[in-house]
């Protein structure tokens, strides 16, 4: 009787754990099955090479390039903010600051990641953009620049927290050895601790990249939602996620090509983040073998 009960409980708990796999299967399954009919209408070559994305217009064009361009542009701007800032903050917290101060500073920094994204959208549109307009008078009300900068600030804690964790797991005898041969604190940080923690720092960067690629509300609010094939960050543009939001706000009939187009966009986004995750996994493996 007791054995049976134990088995039963174990089985129930196992199914709870396995349900997380079902979530992934659900996401991939739905995105793929809803995207397939789209490619009966639009050839894959058009999809990848057409320079216009106007699926809801009279003469629809289905080229993903403008959306990809907007997505990469905002991600690159975000990373040029988040990676230097996050890494320096992490090195500072792990190598310079007393543990007691670190216990206070780190959670405060993490609050940056807790702020709802729609609030960041408000901040980008009504605080950062007017501020930037004072520096660049030609800047429009909607632009990728301020959206990217704000996303960058938002992902700083993702980069710094994980990097700092990785740096702190570097054993102290490595630091002591470095100090013993006469290296300064900064030299130790850059030549010993950061290389030794590289696999962890890489995964922090990868998480930051996936966050920036998938960030939705900031770009939907502040970047203007206009599919625009440009590399100029002062112009409005649309990202993959902003397009999905824009279409979802309207009333699209289930099964129409507009409905399918958001799944195609979502699938592209998923494949993009998946690529980065695989690269991250590969880098981590490679550096772990070397250690």
């Amino acid at each position, binding site marked *: 009787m007791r054995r049976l009960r134990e088995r039963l409980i174990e089985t129930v708990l196992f199914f709870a754990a396995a349900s*997380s796999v079902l979530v992934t299967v659900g996401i991939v399954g739905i995105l793929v099955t809803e995207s397939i009919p789209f490619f009966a209408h639009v050839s894959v070559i058009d999809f990848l090479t057409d320079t216009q994305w106007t699926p809801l217009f009279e003469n629809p064009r289905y080229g993903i390039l403008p959306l990809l361009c907007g997505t990469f542009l905002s991600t690159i701007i975000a990373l040029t903010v988040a990676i230097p800032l996050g890494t320096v903050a992490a090195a500072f917290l792990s190598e310079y600051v007393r543990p007691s101060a670190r216990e206070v500073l780190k959670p405060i920094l993490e609050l940056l990641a807790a702020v709802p994204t729609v*609030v960041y959208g408000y901040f980008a549109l009504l605080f950062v953009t007017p501020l930037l307009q004072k520096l660049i008078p030609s800047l429009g009300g909607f632009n990728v620049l301020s959206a990217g900068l704000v996303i960058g600030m938002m992902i700083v804690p993702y980069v710094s927290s994980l990097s700092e964790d990785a740096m702190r797991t570097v054993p102290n005898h490595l630091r002591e050895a470095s100090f013993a041969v006469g290296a300064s604190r900064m030299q130790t940080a850059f030549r010993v601790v950061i290389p030794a923690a590289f696999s962890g720092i890489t995964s922090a960067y990868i998480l930051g990249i996936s966050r920036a690629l998938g960030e939705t509300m900031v770009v939907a609010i502040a970047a203007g939602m206009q599919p625009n094939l440009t590399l100029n960050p002062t112009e409005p543009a649309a990202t993959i996620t902003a397009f999905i939001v824009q279409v979802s706000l309207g009333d699209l009939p289930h099964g129409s090509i507009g409905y399918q187009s958001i799944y195609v966009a979502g699938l592209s986004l998923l494949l993009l983040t998946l690529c980065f995750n695989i690269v991250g996994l590969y880098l981590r493996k490679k550096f772990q073998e070397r250690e």
Partner: protein
Amino acid sequence: MEANQDILANIKRRQFWDFVFAMMGLMSLLFALITLLALIVDLAVTGVPRINFDFFTNFPSRFAERAGILSAWVGSFCIMLTTAFCAIPLGVAAGVYLEEYSKKNWISHLIELNIINLAGIPSITYGLMALGLFVYKLKLGQSILTAGLTLGLLVLPIIIVTTREAIRAIPNTIREASYAMGASKWQTIRYHILPYSSGGILTGVIISLSRAIGETAPLITIGALTFIAFLPTPPVEGHFPFLNFKWLMDPFTVMPIQMFNWLSRPQPEFHVNAAATGVILLLMTLIMNGGAIYLRSRFRKKMKW
């Protein structure tokens, strides 16, 4: 003598660069904190004067000064309830299984890899999945139930990971002592592991709910309406069986969506409303996160095994 001076100069130079780097570190921390402060102050200056009792009890309106967030906060509350109800049992059970039962085989390896991967999936893809699966395949409609399930699945990895961390912190001696008294595995978990890890689990639950309350994109994707001037069906009624769950199938709006809606209008009066909603949202997430940080540090100090 000259060599000595060389060394001294070298040390000076390194001390200088050390100092420069320390300043850079301090500056980047300060920059991040000042940004956070600027965001809070900017929002508060615009939004706080707008917050009054009527703001909480009015429905959204075409007139900015008469509009309120009644349907939004009720919607947020109902969805949080549904999210908690579906994510907490599932997440805690999964965490317990992975930490206490799972053997090192390919299934548990797959589950662990999958949970790491889920953390990197953009939240909007959860919304697309929910639109296809819950709204159209399972015909749950654009309802509170759909929204609660979507956010529940979204925060599941957070609860699983924090539950595992909390359980991992319990030393093996506790388990061995329990087994030595003749307790079964489940009894050990039920009467020892779960109570001792409840602080850590609670931290995870609070963080995941604070994430859920601010989440906007997946709810827009499942087709949440941006203008709702009615409340869900009350859950209590005057006749048998006194409780009903019709509210689960009602349409909804939530505070972030209400804020987004006001923000995307051109008139500045509506931006004030958006700021006021933002203040309330920010206050709730910061209080929840602060509470989680406090709980974490308290339990870390109290638990000296």
